[in-house]
């Protein structure tokens, strides 16, 4: 029987442009914040293990071995430290590794810190670096990028279920309304449906990126970091973490799918999302109806819709109807991406999974900003994608 494992501290920087700063400093900032939130920087000496989530520091910043650098920069030697890379799900994977280390009895306190500095290169170079996670011969070499795949994927969904481009814009309007209230979000400006879909200049304001995906269907390129302190709640060390209530990790699931998107039986079915969420539900002993709100990986808004179906919040092909009916708004039946999601908060690839879990904790503690605080939440769920849905981690955090 695994011990109860929870989150005792959270840290997060304002997402945006950190390209003038060193990647390791950017990650260390949020790590210090998490220690401070947990009770103070002296707690770093209680950390038994560090996991750093980062996707491509080697390519974006010419920085490798960021975990070794981080412990030294934070005066934490000789604490064991490893870098975890799982594409844009590196952050959630690092949390999963932290959970496993505690469950295995090898640590009682784990610092998980994750970050990415992508704006050190041009927008196209960043898109190109992210595309290296696709199949080299059959996808990357074709010139395909993640927006290209998402465009093809969105068209299939529209053809099959009758969703319109306006429905995509409605998701963005909802995400930006939430992001505008989130002090950590990259984009803190709300947008109106008139500006990006209905108005006479919408086609210019909201131009095509990869048809039918437009600018407001796509996340920005963002730098940033986030961190959490994981604690074995049944260990003596847990008594050192009393500043904030510890939020328990109730379930973690993860699953993989075919590397090539075209090799999926139905490219619109995200098996890895469904299977990872089912694993997480099973571990937590709950179902979709018990979830109070969810942070779903919406690098492209179509993913938010698909994820919300695979996680069991909506029937297949019905999620966009739920958005039309405001079911995913704050105060709706199942608030989705109260943080603004990747769409508004931003998507520093390696940091995103930890950032999502930081949002779960903020909401569960009741620390989210006024206007985007979900009422009395009990369970929060995060879905983090590595690859084009081919390596997915679902994390459920509970307020006991």
């Amino acid at each position, binding site marked *: 029987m695994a011990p109860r494992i929870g989150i005792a501290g959270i840290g997060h920087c304002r997402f945006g442009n950190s390209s003038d700063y060193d990647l390791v400093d950017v990650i260390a900032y949020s790590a210090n914040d998490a220690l401070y939130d947990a009770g103070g920087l002296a707690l770093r000496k209680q950390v038994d293990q560090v996991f750093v989530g980062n996707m491509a520091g080697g390519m974006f910043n010419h920085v490798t071995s960021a975990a070794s650098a981080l412990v030294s920069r934070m005066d934490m030697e000789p604490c064991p430290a490893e870098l975890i890379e799982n594409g844009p799900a590196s952050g959630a994977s690092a949390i999963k590794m932290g959970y496993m280390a505690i469950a295995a009895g090898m640590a009682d306190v784990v610092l998980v810190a994750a970050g990415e500095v992508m704006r050190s290169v041009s927008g196209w*170079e960043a898109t190109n670096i992210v595309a290296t996670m696709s199949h080299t*011969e059959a996808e990357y070499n074709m010139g395909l990028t993640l927006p290209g795949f998402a465009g093809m994927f969105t068209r*299939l969904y529209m053809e099959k279920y009758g969703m319109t481009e306006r429905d995509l814009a409605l998701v963005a309007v909802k995400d930006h309304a939430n992001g505008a209230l989130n002090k950590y979000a990259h984009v803190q400006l709300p947008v109106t449906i008139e500006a990006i879909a209905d108005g006479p200049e919408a086609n210019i304001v909201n131009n095509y990126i990869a048809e039918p995906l437009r600018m407001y269907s796509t996340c920005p390129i963002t730098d940033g970091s986030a961190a959490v302190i994981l604690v074995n709640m049944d260990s003596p060390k847990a008594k050192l973490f009393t500043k904030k209530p510890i939020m328990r990790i109730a379930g973690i699931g993860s699953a993989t799918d075919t590397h090539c998107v075209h090799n999926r039986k139905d490219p619109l079915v995200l098996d890895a999302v469904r299977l990872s969420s089912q694993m997480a539900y099973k571990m937590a002993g709950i179902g979709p109806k018990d979830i109070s709100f969810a942070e779903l990986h919406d690098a492209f808004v179509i993913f938010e819709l698909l994820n919300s179906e695979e996680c069991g919040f909506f029937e297949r092909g019905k999620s966009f109807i739920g958005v039309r009916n405001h079911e995913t708004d704050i105060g709706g039946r199942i608030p989705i991406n109260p943080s603004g999601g990747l769409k508004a908060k931003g998507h520093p690839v390696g940091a995103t999974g930890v950032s999502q879990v930081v949002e779960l904790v903020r909401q569960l503690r009741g620390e989210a900003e006024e206007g985007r605080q979900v009422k009395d939440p009990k369970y929060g769920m995060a879905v983090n994608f590595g690859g084009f849905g081919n390596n997915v981690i679902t994390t459920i955090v509970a307020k006991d």
Partner: protein
Amino acid sequence: MIDFSVYDEQFPHISGWKCQKCGTIYYPAPMLCKKCDSRRDPTTGKGWEEFNLEGPCKLLTWTRVWNLPEGFNRKFLMFGMVEFPNGLRASGRLEAEGDPVIGSTLTASVIEADERPGKPVKVFLFS
């Protein structure tokens, strides 16, 4: 033991692969057959039949990508996903007048592209 240094591809084409033991076909190449567990050695191809993946195919979905980086010298690039009559699917570039129709029949050929740095790469062109 495998020596990748002797591997020097001679033919400007894109291959599908057939497991000779059970007949299952693949694209791109697997390292083992999911049906009969036969191993594939990428240097010799022994036990596997290589065939050109080209010719008629059905368009499954497509996109038009705008704002291309330097090197492409065009306003947009179209991409598609297709299915061949043998059931294999592939993603690649698409050339069409106006908006293509999902379900229409196209022809897959192979070109070499050199927009990205490094060696030229083989690219499907569906037209």
